[in-house]
């Protein structure tokens, strides 16, 4: 099977603290996933779960401590520039931070065209830019010569997608693309991913904490928690029938837009991020309602339950559930 992106046993370790009290935090802990052509794949989790670190490693901004990243048979690290030109592009969280407020937005487009030799002359460049802008619902005319402050957040985010499209990428990495866009305009961005996938066959790695839009637009999803992928499978299975206790907690905590279905029960928030990262066994054991003795001693393996991979002892065959 062809893979647009193949990530295997990827890890990233950071050291924090002073020389005398050094703590090693495994921000990304041995994760593997693949993205197929024309697939929208979600990497979801809360802040500090390692999803952005993963994106940075895929984009070559950070060097992995271990593991490989492969794009269409080419391993990253050997020739990063080619790797990026060949078809991995990215958009980021803050559309206002993406563009320098003192430069007109079109200059970024002409620069990209020039850097990658995408057109022979200015007319050709304008034609290419106009074509890419039209695929995100804008035109060259309404955008030329304007500064970032003259656009709304949603428009700027669509403009950064259009810029990413200039090189005809096969994979778009979108790191929290809607979290700073108004809820009323979010769907226009998310619908755009769907359109690009259908029309151009582009794959998208959609990194988000917003499970509702992930469910709406994605095919498969990986839920990350403290560096681990705790559950991975189709969105239908993972989000509608969550198996891992953490996925269940996340899924329950999303406020539903229905006053008849308000939250019941309470959440426990008291452990800190660092404590959880440094846990020996399952990182979620401190908050898990069904934690067993073994969970606190040894991290669980990935266990296949149907088509879903779950990192939880509850599903291990040789385990007889015994409550601590």
């Amino acid at each position, binding site marked *: 099977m062809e893979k647009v992106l193949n990530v295997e046993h990827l890890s990233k370790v950071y050291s924090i603290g002073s020389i005398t009290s050094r703590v090693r935090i495994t921000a990304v802990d041995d994760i593997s996933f693949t993205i197929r052509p024309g697939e929208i794949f979600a990497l979801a989790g809360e802040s500090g779960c390692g999803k952005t670190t993963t994106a940075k490693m895929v984009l070559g901004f950070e060097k992995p401590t271990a593991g490989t990243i492969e794009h269409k048979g080419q391993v990253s690290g050997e020739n990063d520039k080619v790797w990026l030109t060949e078809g991995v592009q990215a958009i980021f969280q803050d559309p206002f931070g993406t563009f320098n407020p003192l430069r007109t937005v079109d200059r970024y487009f002409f620069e990209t065209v020039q850097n990658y030799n995408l057109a022979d002359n200015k007319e050709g460049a304008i034609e290419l830019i106009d074509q890419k802008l039209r695929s995100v619902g804008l035109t060259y005319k309404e955008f030329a010569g304007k500064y970032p402050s003259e656009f709304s957040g949603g428009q700027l985010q669509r403009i950064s997608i259009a810029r990413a499209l200039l090189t005809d990428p096969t994979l778009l990495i979108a790191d929290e693309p809607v979290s700073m866009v108004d809820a009323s305009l*979010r769907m226009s961005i998310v619908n755009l991913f769907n359109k690009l996938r259908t029309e151009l066959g582009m794959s998208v790695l959609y990194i988000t904490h917003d499970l*509702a839009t992930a*469910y709406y637009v994605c095919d498969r999803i990986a839920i990350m928690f403290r560096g681990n992928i705790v559950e991975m499978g189709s969105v239908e299975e993972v989000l509608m029938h969550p198996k891992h206790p953490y996925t269940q907690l996340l899924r329950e905590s999303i406020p539903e837009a229905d006053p008849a279905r308000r939250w019941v029960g309470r959440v426990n928030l008291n452990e800190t991020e660092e404590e959880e990262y440094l846990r020996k066994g399952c990182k979620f054991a401190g908050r898990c309602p069904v934690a067993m003795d073994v969970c606190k001693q040894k991290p669980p393996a990935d266990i296949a339950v149907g088509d879903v991979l779950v990192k939880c002892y509850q599903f291990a065959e040789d385990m007889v559930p015994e409550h601590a």
Partner: protein
Amino acid sequence: MNDTILSTEGLKAFYVLEVYGEQKVVKAVNEVELDIRENEIYGIAGESGCGKSTLLKALAAVIEPPLRLISGKVIYHVDDKTVDVSTLDSETLRRLRWDFISYVPQGSMSVLNPVKRLKDTYQDFIISHLEGKSREEAFTLARQHIAELGLPPQVMDSYPHQLSGGMRQRVTIALAALLEPNIIIADEPTTALDVVVQRGVVQLLRDIQQKLNNTIILVTHDMGVHANVADRIGIMYAGKMVEEASSEVIFGEPLHPYTQYLINSLPVFGDKSPRESVPGSPPSLIDLPTGCAFHPRCPYVMDICKTKTPDYITARPNHKVACWLIEEDGDGKSA
């Protein structure tokens, strides 16, 4: 029905700016009528840049240039008396603050003094607002308060940077509730927090409201949060209130086309049918469209919408809306 605790009459608050000798007026709050009652959670929703935060500043009487109160009134109902906030001197206002009304501004996880432990912040606060308390008494009161709200007592010995964003947000809200105010105004308290932490903050707001039986005015653009806590919701668009009703009615049978878009664009689990955003972009508050400000984006636009602003009418019992499609009547006819 409960009594009114805070109301506004034709409230107009504009930012008046001089740019290169040219005067620019940002009509952030434009003739807003509100009637907020005792013992309820009132939610205000709308896109960014619709004037939500400015409205809260006006309600909390923290109007500072370039923001100016142009006309209209904010009225507090303090102990069976009504007071027009703009007539109060600064000393009376200072007494009302925290005791009658407290305001948790946006990004309030960064308001705590970074070089003071939280117990010192709490003590300073208690001593300056409750006369005749010693440091020890203040400290006991602060600890007790934190414990009652279910926050871990060791946070009192921490510096702000040692706590997570969600914890700081909850500590700030707890501080705002310390003097048991009749009204707490919270501006986007759950924005930029993770879903599980967000749920913790909402849980805290709900606990405070149930304990004090007071009023919480909650501004957020997250309709899911509104659905979860608000008793009544007001929808704001381009500086005006366009619809107001109970949460059930706003989510169940919204009347204004803008509200309908807001509700229908939300993704729902178990339903992958295509959803559309509100078309177009929010208008600039410097240069508002004529007539109904929503008309350039409205799918049902009529001629009258382009020239005349619709009145904010009671279309059905306890359901107000400003739209030419809706007629004023008790029996809820709509054209």
